[in-house]
């Protein structure tokens, strides 16, 4: 298995692309800043969002039941899935019962998490992702590298080539407007033919049973309103108490995500179209267990805006695929170990702990705090490499003893100064692989202090 560091190294091999990735996401982060500064009481809004989410999580069972009741009264059918497999089965059953075979889907990280597409494809059902970025990666057979901008790792030349091959577009035409128009035409046909439309869910309102979906492209609406059957897949944590709470979240979501004041479409679905069916599938897949973990519960507040990715110095310079989990970046790194602490034990270490993710998070998740806690928990479970473990053990001894500390400093200063380069910059010194060690001072701070201020003590100085 390759870990984050290995994959990041692969990403960084293409220097030009890596620099572009870094710069582009930083641009999105800057747009977010402008938006945040423009809203009076932005911080108060974040606090509100955090409290509403924490409250909802503390009474989640009540709100889910309330939501279900209203949704059923509105005319929707509500299903519950405790696992990923159950979600897939329910979707498959609805499709089969209606003899459907043409499915369109708008963005849903949940169905990505549950592996819905491969599940349906194995059973001979065509499922078309309709978000442009998602369609691109679907045609390319790649996972998303960002939760809001799934194809941010791909350049227009590659898209042009892909569309030429798959959609018969003009060879060598890399104009984004032309490429988007090609996709529009191609997907229009899919929308019109579709019998079932699947969407994710941004928010579910307990007090009226509404399912809210936010998109810029309008693909969720094109699908839902054109197909006779609509299916909305939501994690249990998506439910919020009141319609008025939506004001708080819709004000935060797009500003944090892409630096827009609101998404182009904020759609509220309450009942099926005349003669249609509306299904809502409520999915757990490990979430209810996470509620019980006090240290990590807050990660369920996440509204999937992606701001933590755009700001993260590690994400920007390593790309979403190096995280090898369905949700990349800082938030993904605290969610991933819950699903498999062995497979994703490297992810909480893929961070500088600078805390920028927590600062931009619209619902105030202490992301870097959780990353730090995961490191401790995972280390106790033996996640560290033997080398790191050895280093830590020795460092602990040295740092605990005055004499050892002074002596080892002397030795290190001498070594760096006099040993030949090959001995210092060897395989064991991973830090020195990309960097130069600092120039060695003549003496330690302690020595310098003793020499210069010892007498000062006598004069009453400290």
């Amino acid at each position, binding site marked *: 298995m390759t870990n984050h560091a290995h994959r990041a190294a692969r990403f960084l091999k293409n220097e030009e692309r890596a620099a572009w990735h870094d710069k582009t996401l930083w641009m999105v982060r800057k747009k977010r800043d402008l938006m945040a500064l423009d809203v009076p009481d932005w911080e108060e809004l974040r606090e509100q969002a955090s409290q509403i989410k924490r409250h909802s999580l503390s009474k989640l069972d009540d709100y889910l039941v309330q939501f279900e009741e209203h949704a059923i009264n509105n005319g929707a059918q509500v299903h519950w899935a405790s696992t990923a497999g159950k979600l897939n089965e329910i979707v498959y059953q609805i499709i089969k019962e209606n003899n459907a075979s043409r499915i369109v889907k708008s963005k849903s990280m949940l169905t990505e998490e549950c592996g819905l597409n491969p599940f349906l494809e194995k059973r001979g059902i065509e499922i078309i992702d309709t978000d442009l970025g998602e369609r691109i990666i679907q045609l390319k057979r790649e996972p998303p590298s960002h939760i809001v901008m799934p194809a941010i790792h791909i350049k227009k030349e590659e898209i042009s080539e892909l569309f030429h091959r798959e959609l018969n577009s003009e060879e060598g035409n890399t104009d984004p407007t032309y490429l988007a128009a090609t996709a529009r035409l191609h997907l229009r046909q899919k929308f019109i033919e579709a019998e079932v439309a699947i969407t994710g869910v941004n928010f579910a309102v307990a007090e009226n049973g509404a399912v809210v979906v936010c998109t810029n492209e309008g693909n969720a609406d094109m699908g839902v309103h054109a197909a006779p059957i609509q299916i909305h897949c939501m994690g249990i944590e998506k439910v919020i108490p009141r319609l008025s709470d939506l004001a708080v979240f819709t004000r935060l979501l797009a500003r944090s995500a892409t630096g*827009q004041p609101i998404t182009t479409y904020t759609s509220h679905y309450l009942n099926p179209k005349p003669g249609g069916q509306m299904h809502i599938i409520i999915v757990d897949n490990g979430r209810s267990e996470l509620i*019980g973990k006090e240290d990590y519960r807050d990660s369920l507040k996440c509204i999937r805006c992606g701001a933590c990715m755009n700001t993260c110095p590690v994400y920007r310079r390593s790309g979403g695929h190096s995280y090898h989990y369905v949700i990349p970046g800082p938030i993904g790194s605290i969610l991933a170990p819950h699903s498999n602490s062995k497979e994703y034990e490297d992810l909480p270490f893929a961070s500088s702990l600078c805390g920028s993710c927590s600062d931009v998070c619209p619902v105030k998740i202490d992301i870097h705090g959780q990353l730090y806690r995961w490191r401790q928990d995972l280390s106790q479970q033996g996640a560290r490499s033997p080398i790191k473990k050895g280093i830590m053990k020795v460092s602990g001894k040295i740092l605990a003893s005055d004499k050892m500390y002074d002596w080892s400093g002397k030795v290190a200063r001498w070594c760096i100064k006099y040993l030949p380069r090959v001995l210092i910059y060897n395989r064991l010194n991973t830090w020195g692989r990309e960097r130069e060690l600092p120039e060695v001072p003549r003496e330690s701070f302690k020595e310098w202090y003793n020499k210069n201020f010892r007498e000062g003590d006598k004069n009453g100085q400290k």
Partner: protein
Amino acid sequence: MRETKMDRNKILLNIQRSRIKPVNLPEPFCSAEKEGDKTILFKEMLMQTGGDCIEVNSTEELNSLLDNNFRGATDLRRNELFKNFLSYSNKDSLERLKTVILEGQFGVAENGSIWIDDSNFPNRLISFICEELVVCLDSKQIVSNMHEAYLRIDNAISGFGVFISGPSKTSDIEQHLVYGAHGAKKLVVIISHQSILE
């Protein structure tokens, strides 16, 4: 489905088992209004989101504008057209819709969006599938922000309602902004400064 009933109980039980200390739900919140004229702010934001804006001061002005600039458009503010579309579900014909005119219920100054729901269109697909969407808005019907917007809706959503802010768009190709991803390629808002649309 009996199967999902079992899952329902399992999920709810699991949540109850890890029940956490109650946390208070904050009172509905309303942040400070931005200073300045709401209509001007609305226009600014609408333009920022890629929408076009035309202002009129009288019924005559509106009619002649629609006549000159949007001749042949499907004006769903007219009752007979609205009714015609009610039982209309032929997607292929809807796909040929060029310009559609609707009445917007209210606008939101902070983000240039407009609220419409089932009462404004006879078929939910129309405002997404048409090429160009024209929304008429009474200048008195502009609220400051989303807090006021949801107060205004007050849980009276018929079955489907949507805030629309500008034309459909995507930046999925190298963050290059393109209008007309899937929905309407163009959005025009006609702001009437007189309550002429009753």
